[in-house]
C-alpha cells in the first residue's frame, strides 16, 4: 500500500466519521419542549443545543440509547456497545404513569430483571436535571425552570397567611 492509498483511506475514514457525527448533529433538536406532564407548573423549554455545548457525553443524559456507549458501571455489562435506538426521547422508556395498575402488574410479571425500578417520566426529568444542576451550579429552585400556574398557586395555597388560626395543634 502506497502512502497515497493510506492517505486516501484515512481521508475516507475521516469523512465517514464526519458525516456520521454530522448526521447525528442534524438529528439533534435545538430545543425540546418538556410540557406533557405539567398542570401546576408550565412546561420547560429545554435548550438542548446549549446543554450539548457543555461538552458532556450524550450518555450523561441518554444512558445507552444514542449509540455512544455508556460508562456507568451498572450498565456496561449489557450496554457498552448498544446501538442507537429509534427514539431517544425520555418518554420513550420512562412512562408518565409509573404507578398505574397496568404498570404495577407488568412489574409483578418480572419482565425487566434490571429495569424493574425504572423511574417514571417526572422523576427521570427531575433526577437528571436537578442532580446535574447541583453538581454544575445550575438553578435548582422549582420556579427557576418552570413557572407555577394559577392552578399551582391554588394547590400550594399561596394565599395562606400566618394570621389565620385554624385550630392547629400539631403537638
Amino acid at each position, binding site marked *: 500500500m502506497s502512502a497515497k492509498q493510506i492517505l486516501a483511506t484515512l481521508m475516507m475514514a475521516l469523512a465517514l466519521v464526519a458525516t456520521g457525527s454530522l448526521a447525528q448533529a442534524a438529528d439533534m433538536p435545538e430545543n425540546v419542549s418538556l410540557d406533557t406532564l405539567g398542570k401546576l407548573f408550565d412546561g420547560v423549554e429545554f435548550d438542548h443545543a446549549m446543554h450539548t455545548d457543555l461538552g458532556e457525553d450524550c450518555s450523561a443524559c441518554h444512558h445507552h440509547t444514542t449509540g455512544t456507549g455508556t460508562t456507568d458501571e451498572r450498565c456496561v455489562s449489557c450496554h457498552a456497545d448498544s446501538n442507537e435506538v429509534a427514539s431517544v426521547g425520555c418518554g420513550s422508556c420512562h412512562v408518565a404513569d409509573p404507578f398505574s*395498575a397496568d404498570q404495577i402488574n407488568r412489574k409483578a410479571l418480572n419482565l425487566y430483571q434490571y429495569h424493574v425500578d425504572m423511574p417514571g417520566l417526572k422523576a427521570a426529568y427531575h433526577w437528571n436535571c436537578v442532580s446535574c444542576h447541583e453538581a454544575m451550579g445550575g438553578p435548582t429552585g422549582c420556579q427557576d425552570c418552570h413557572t407555577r400556574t394559577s392552578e399551582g398557586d391554588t394547590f400550594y395555597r399561596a394565599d395562606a397567611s400566618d394570621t*389565620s388560626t385554624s385550630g392547629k*395543634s400539631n403537638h
Partner: protein
Amino acid sequence: MSGISRRRFLAASVAGCAATTLAGPKKALAAGSFTGYSDSMGVLVDLTRCIGCRSCEAACNKEQNLPAPDRPFDDKSVFDETFHGGKQKRRPDENAYTVVNRYNPEGSDHPLYRKVQCNHCNEPACLSSCFVNAYTKTKEGAVVYNSKVCVGCRNCMIACPFNIPGYSYSSAFDPVVKKCIFCHETRLKNGLPPACVDICPQEALTFGKRRELLKIGNQRIQTHPGRYVDHIYGEKELGGTSWMYLSSVPFEEVGFDPNPGNEPIINNVKDFLGTVPMVLAIWPAMFTGFHLLAKKREGHDDHDQDADQHHGEEGGEQ
C-alpha cells in the same frame, strides 16, 4: 347429694380446662401471625430522594378536603417548628394527615427529609385497641376507620407506636380521630396511587405491591453500595407495615424508633387476653364448687348441732 356436687365440680373444672387449652392456643396462634394480605399495596419512601418540597402535604390537603394551612405549602420555614421544648418535630394532626420534617444528621453535608404519615401496619395497634371496632385493615393494605362509630376515646392514639392518629380537638360536639387512610376511598380501592405519591416530583415515594417493594428496596440497597443503610424500616418492625422506608443514615438519626421490635403490639397483650376465656370458663365452675363445698360444711355444722338426733344418717360422711 354433696357427692354428686363434688363430681360435678370436678367435671366442670376438667371441661373448662380442656376448653381453654383447646381454644386458647388456636387463638393465640392466629393473632400475631398475620403478615398482610398477599396482594396488598404499599409505599416505599426513599429518604435519599426527598428534597423537602412539601408537595405531598399539599396533595393530601386537596385530596382529603382538609382546612387551609397556616402557611403556604411551599413555605420551608415550617421545618424549623418544634414542640415540647424543641424535642418533637411536626406530627400529623386533624388538619394535616402527613407532614415532612427536616433532619441534619451528623456527618451528612446535606439535610434529609422524612415524610410522616400512617404506616398502615399489617397488624395495627390502633385496630387492636379500638373497642367499638371502628378500624379495618383492608385487603388493599389501608388501615381505615369508620368515624360514625368512633366514640372519641383516643385509645388508638395511645396504642399507635408511631404517634399517628390525630384528634379533632376543635370539634366541641363530635370529636373523632383523624389520620391518613392511604386515600383508600378515592384512589386506592380504584387501583390508583395515593395523592402524595402521584404528586412527588422525585419519586421519593414508590407505590406498588408490598412484596414487590421489598424486592425493589433490596435491589436499591444492592445496586448502590454505600448509599443506603442495609435495612428496610417497616419490613419486619412491629409485624410489618405497608409503608416502608430506606435511609442513607441510621434510622434513629432521622426520627425513627430504632428498635421497636418485630412483634405486633397486640402480642404484648395476647397472652393476657388468652387467659380471659380461661377465667370465664373455670372461675364460675370453681367458685360454684367452693360455694357448694362451703354450703356443705355449713350443712355439717348444722348437723353437728343436731348430731345426737341424726348421728346414724350422717355418720358415713364425717
